[in-house]
């Protein structure tokens, strides 16, 4: 018997097509050509900016950051004699104040409205639908201007007739004052961080115990008192005292003040983003297989239990990536605060440039800071997404 099996041979050099017809070579060459074109365009643009800046005597470095800002920032300790560097830092802090508070509030409101969109109650369902349809179809810029002019400055009363709901807040066209605390913010931040760590540790311990013994985990029940203890310790050790806003004639003492500008941008961003998050939550709930709900009903779970234990955990797995996009949009949309003179990062940059700071490095710095903020938010969302993702075998 003669074996006819041949050992596979690599194609000889002579058998290969010529370079200009070799698909692998052509692919690499095409990508190199595109890269070269992109690099040439970037080089031309950078060279153009440098040449024009030098011709006009505009510095292209970042030395301007040490010059005095020459403008004050309302509702802050920043003075106009301080350098632009501090103004940029204050502007970025204001951006963070809007973005982080907005993300938390929009998530809560959006989730509630999204669930309400699927409510069996016709009135609640219809109201949620009107909320979503109305706000999703209004330009955010107009919403911010409307919130500022029509709510913060017009609907809210003058300081003499300020609203004082339950004696806990003072609301007027000078701003919204809410209860706060006297003292440094550090004990609060450390207390919150400690509470988060304690919650994580207790949840891990209870889940491990549940896996080992089959007992109920109840991580929230166990974590709640520990969190309260940690927060109370931070409060006492930090020497914090609560203050409630008090109206004395035209003067308000105590509490913390939200300026009309901050209120307008935060309010508009929250309701606008919440309307988008609501649709994401609704779509995610409807994307959960109907059989899951029916199975939960079959084992006699109540409608609330079905929602909390069966539907929402699966829905949020679907919802996290698009909700993360909404967080990024919210952070970027905070730059629209400039229309109501809220001193966030873009507004500070704009005023700095108006006062003589070079435009190109100023805006490059602003762009870089927004890229960093967006990447940081994306990283957090990606971590949550990975934690929630199904582990496939």
């Amino acid at each position, binding site marked *: 018997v003669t074996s006819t099996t041949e050992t596979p041979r690599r194609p000889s050099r002579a058998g290969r097509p010529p370079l200009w017809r070799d698909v692998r070579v052509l692919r690499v060459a095409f990508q190199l050509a595109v890269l070269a074109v992109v690099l040439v365009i970037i080089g031309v643009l950078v060279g153009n900016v440098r040449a024009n800046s030098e011709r006009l005597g505009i510095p292209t470095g970042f030395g301007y950051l040490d010059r005095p800002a020459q403008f004050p920032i309302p509702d802050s300790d920043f003075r106009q004699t301080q350098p632009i560097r501090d103004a940029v830092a204050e502007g970025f802090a204001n951006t963070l104040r809007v973005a982080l508070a907005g993300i938390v509030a929009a998530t809560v409101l959006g989730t509630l409205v999204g669930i309400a969109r699927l409510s*069996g*109650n*016709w*009135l*609640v369902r219809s*109201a949620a639908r009107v909320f979503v349809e109305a706000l999703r179809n209004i330009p955010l810029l107009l919403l911010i201007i409307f919130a500022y002019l029509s709510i913060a400055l017009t609907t809210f009363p003058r300081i003499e007739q300020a609203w004082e709901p339950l004696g806990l807040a003072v609301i007027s066209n000078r701003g919204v004052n809410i209860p706060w605390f006297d003292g440094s913010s550090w004990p609060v931040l450390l207390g919150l961080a400690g509470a988060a760590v304690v919650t994580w540790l207790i949840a891990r311990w209870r889940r491990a115990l549940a896996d080992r013994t089959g007992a109920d985990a109840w991580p929230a029940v166990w974590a709640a008192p520990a969190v309260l203890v940690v927060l109370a310790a931070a409060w006492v050790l930090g020497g914090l005292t609560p203050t409630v806003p008090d109206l004395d004639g035209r003067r308000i003492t105590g509490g913390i003040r939200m300026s009309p500008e901050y209120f307008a941008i935060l309010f508009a961003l929250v309701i606008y983003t919440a309307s988008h998050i609501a649709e994401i939550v609704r779509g995610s709930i409807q994307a959960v297989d109907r059989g899951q709900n029916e199975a939960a009903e079959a084992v006699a779970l109540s409608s609330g239990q079905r929602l909390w234990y069966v539907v929402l955990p699966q829905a949020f797995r679907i919802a996290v990536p698009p909700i993360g996009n909404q967080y990024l949009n919210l952070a970027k949309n905070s730059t629209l605060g400039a229309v109501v003179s809220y001193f966030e990062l873009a507004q500070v940059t704009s005023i700095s440039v108006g006062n003589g700071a070079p435009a190109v490095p100023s805006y490059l710095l602003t762009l870089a800071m927004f890229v960093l903020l967006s990447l940081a938010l994306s990283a957090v969302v990606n971590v949550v997404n990975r934690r929630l993702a199904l582990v496939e075998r």
Partner: protein
Amino acid sequence: MAAALVHRRPDVGRWLRKNLFRNRLDGVVTVTSAVAIAYLLYRVVRFVLVTGRWDIVRVNLKLLMVGRYPDVHLPRVAVSLVVAGLVAGLIAGVVHRRQVEAGTSAVAGMGLGERVVDLVERFWPLILGVVLVLGLSSTPGPWLAAAGAAAACLLGRLVGGRVPRATHGALVVAAIATPFALVAYLADGAGWDGWGGLMVNVFMAVAAIILCYPLGCCSRSGDVRRCR
């Protein structure tokens, strides 16, 4: 066994129990929501009908709609609306006919009254917007333009349902080209600096929607092979 089809009259009490008062908690939610919504509605209606000052809109309506577009060229806006209505009607007619032929039309079996209700349900925001604008206008021009556009749309709908199938492709291409032609026609009257108001918003939106497709397709074309 003969199945008797009983035409049950709408029962308000049953509807209320099923949709608003399923249980005690639902009742509390309904009452609380109703109070809040009633208060909001009261404030909105009071503002719209009593305290709101709409004269500023009436006086500046032309500025809001077409900006500084020259008065002598305003008929171009009306002609553009009529042409846009005609083309929209033609495409609607073509789509309807193809749906009927494929057996997927949702409105094929409806009577005229039902069709009108269906149209109002689908296009109520557009109708409401037009009615609001016309209600604030004090000249016959906007009324004539709106009536002309509506008539052209109806005519296009009737004709579109009867044109031969072979021409459908050409009609779609013409519909895509129409916005560009209308923009050129409007710009011919006032140049690019004369645009403003809602007209420039519509122009930007249409241009962006049309241009985003080729750009998006080009930028993602590298992923096509990966998707296969």
